């Protein structure tokens, strides 16, 4: 009975048939009703047009997706998330931007491009995911597991400083950011003996240009030329 009341109230609200006094709802019903309601309402009061922004950065128009699920079916990390990749696009189609930007899925994505290469509508989901991650980082949306973000930050920090990756520095920064001080500690001796990790970074000579690129790109919002060619 509880579920039915909830559903009916939701339906009436959407189709505006007639209002039901909230007095009839139990407190649990009210909470779930509000959260669903507010998810839909929020669409109308969104201040940033994320749909336009993501289309501009990635050049991909989410409305061409017909939700066939082929991307999710072939995604190597699909099993690790409750929100399959096709649903991320669906959130964008419905205007539920925050759900997409806060999801684990976008940070689990390996960038393997299996989805883009098989999509029947030629939607480049990998590019779309890239744009979502950029928007998430720049607008401070964080998932529960932030390991991947910290890894990327650690990696790029070295490139910013030296122009090339400095693996030792990257791993050091990652461990400090995540607190995983003992991760892969067993592999470390082997890496040193085989000469695969050096303690000193290699610095390129033209460091200024690298600094400039990093500065500009962190401030810039870039327009993409073509949408769904």
């Amino acid at each position, binding site marked *: 009975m509880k579920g039915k009341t909830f559903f009916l109230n939701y339906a009436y609200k959407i189709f505006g048939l007639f209002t039901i006094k909230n007095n009839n709802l139990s407190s649990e019903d009210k909470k779930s009703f509000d959260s669903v309601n507010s998810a839909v309402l929020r669409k109308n009061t969104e201040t940033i047009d994320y749909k336009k922004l993501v289309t501009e950065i990635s050049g991909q128009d989410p409305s061409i997706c*017909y*939700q*066939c*699920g*082929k*991307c*999710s*079916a*072939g*995604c190597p990390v*699909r*099993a690790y998330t*409750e*929100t*399959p990749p*096709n*649903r991320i696009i669906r959130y964008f189609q419905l205007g539920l931007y925050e759900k997409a930007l806060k999801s684990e899925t976008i940070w689990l994505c390996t960038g393997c491009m*299996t989805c883009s290469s*098989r*999509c*029947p*509508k*030629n939607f480049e989901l990998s590019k779309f995911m890239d744009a979502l991650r950029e928007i998430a980082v720049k607008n401070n949306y964080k998932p529960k597991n932030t390991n991947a973000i910290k890894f990327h930050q650690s990696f790029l920090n070295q490139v910013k400083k030296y122009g090339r990756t400095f693996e030792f520095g990257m791993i050091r920064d990652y461990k400090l950011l995540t607190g995983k001080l003992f991760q892969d500690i067993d592999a470390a001796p082997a890496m040193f003996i085989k000469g695969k990790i050096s303690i000193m970074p290699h610095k390129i000579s033209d460091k200024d240009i690298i600094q400039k690129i990093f500065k500009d790109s962190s401030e810039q919002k870039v327009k993409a030329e073509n949408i769904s060619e």
Partner: protein
Amino acid sequence: MKIGVFVCHCGENISKTVDCSRVAKACAEIPGVVHTEDYKYMCSDPGQNIIKQAIKEKQLDGVVIGACSPHMHEKTFRKVCNSAGINPYMVEIANLREHCSWIHDDIEAATRKAIDLVHIAIEKVKYNEPLIPIRVPISKKALVIGGGISGIQASLDIANSGFQVILVEKEPSIGGHMSQLSETFPTLDCSQCILTPRMVEVYQHPNIKLMTYSEIESVDGFIGNFKVRIRKKARHVREDLCTGCGDCTQKCPIKKSAVSEFEEGLTTRTAIYVPFPQAVPNIPVIDTEACTYFKTGKCQMCVKVCGRGAIDFKQQDSFVEEEVGAIIVATGYNLYSIDKKPEGSIYKGYGEYGYGKFKDVINGLQFERLASASGPTSGEILRPSDKKQPQKIVFIQCVGSRDESKGISYCSKICCMYTAKHAMLYKHKVPKGEAYVFYMDIRAGGKMYEEFVRRAIEEDGVNYIRGRVSRIYESNGKLIVKGEDTIAGEAVEIDADLVVLATAMIAQENSSSLAQMLGVPYDKHGFMQEAHPKLRPVETSSGGIFLAGACNSPRDIPESVAMASAAAAKALVLFGSDVLEREPVIAKVNESTCAGCFYCQKVCAYNAIERKIIKDRLGNFIKEIAYVNTSLCQGCGTCNATCPSKSVELIGFKDDQIFAEILALAEV
């Protein structure tokens, strides 16, 4: 000349951007114009009456109408004038809609342009001459290309009306793809049982000349008067002697090397063969590429066993010329294959499903053959690889269809229905087996179609999973199918024994070359184009050529049958009169000035220019000049533009008419 000018508002289409009453008033000033009027809908009954009235009252002998494109209503207005008593070719239309109001925003400029357009027409009509339509005899015989269900239906309808039909089919037997099906949706009728009576009716019909194993070689002429050349390919079996006893096919030693086209590659056939037992005509054909005699000169087993001496290795292709009045194209469809495609193809293959290399991944027609009682497995569903019964079958819809990345954006219409049918047939034969269908949408719009699909799900226990399959690969004799159910948001992985792909319906092979031969437009996929998608679905823009069935676009059997009868009706409309009236707007040669250079003949696309010898009164040769065949000329004007001595004129668009228009513009 007394000219009447009528300016139509076309509702708001013209009057929104053009001030019609101002146009009418401005034209009243032009010398020769004795009546001007503007009205909301000139093409309507009251509008037409206005014109008729004005003609009678003011004794008009020329009419100019400012309205929509002549493509729309030129015929209408010509009829109006004809019924009011003036020659219909004393009418000129100024296109104030497509050429003016629909393409401009500026009202002042558009109105001035409209006045110019009407002015030009007025000056032209002053030079118009009364013309009489040309009458051409009609050949009351039809040609039907393609002997599938559509071709069969069209042939029977025309033949039963008492007219002769020539039915040309490229395969050794008629029947088409419908003869390969096991059962048809939504009734689950046995396909061959409902088809073969029609096939026999065609074979026995006195009005139908059946030409199987034949192809169209060339088509000339025009509506009512087509000249067709048909190539009868050499069967190497004399049709007049063969009794269809089947001894030759039984004894032919080539059993394994020729792949059976009818069985969609699932089994082999002999070199001398009849495609299927109910073939019409039941006369074998020799596949010269598989036959030992044709390769090495040895064997001749069929000759030895044939009691009638019907084998004729020396037979050649022969040609037949026919004159027909109407042509119906019913060439049907082909199926998209998932094989790797060559460079430059507009389609791509399905690498993610194995590029056709997995034996147990088959298409819909192959499944039909497995399910068919007369098929390679006698109706038992068995895996092609090891002939074991599959316990789990996965059916995948939309393979190729609705897939822009593979080159096909359209929906093939029939797959949702036949997949449900296949799943049901499987469950009826293997009740404990598991059937899964991966779909994106269910398109079941026909009569009893939706109920049919629900029956598969609710009564026969077929599992429908909404989502696509990303990949299929083989592992330990099973096919691993990786898909997704988007409704539940769950990944689905199935270890199937057999996978059936509902591949897209594409155009018949070489449909584009047949279309070019006929002069019929076709799209990038090779489907023949109808004249108008809403109102003229069975006609083409070439008069006298009609379409039936899947050659035009994917469709199922009831629609194809309906379309075939519609095309037959169109042909019968043509045969309803004894003569065809042609537009008299054609070219004409001035015999005095023509020097006989024949440049016009070289450029005429319709072969309408002929040569004529001019003799003096005593019969002595004076000169050979060009002469326009009034039956063939389409009035394109190319000869007119080419002639160096200006001896060819286009009636209705003569030089003095054109110059009058130019001078009228120059004045302003």
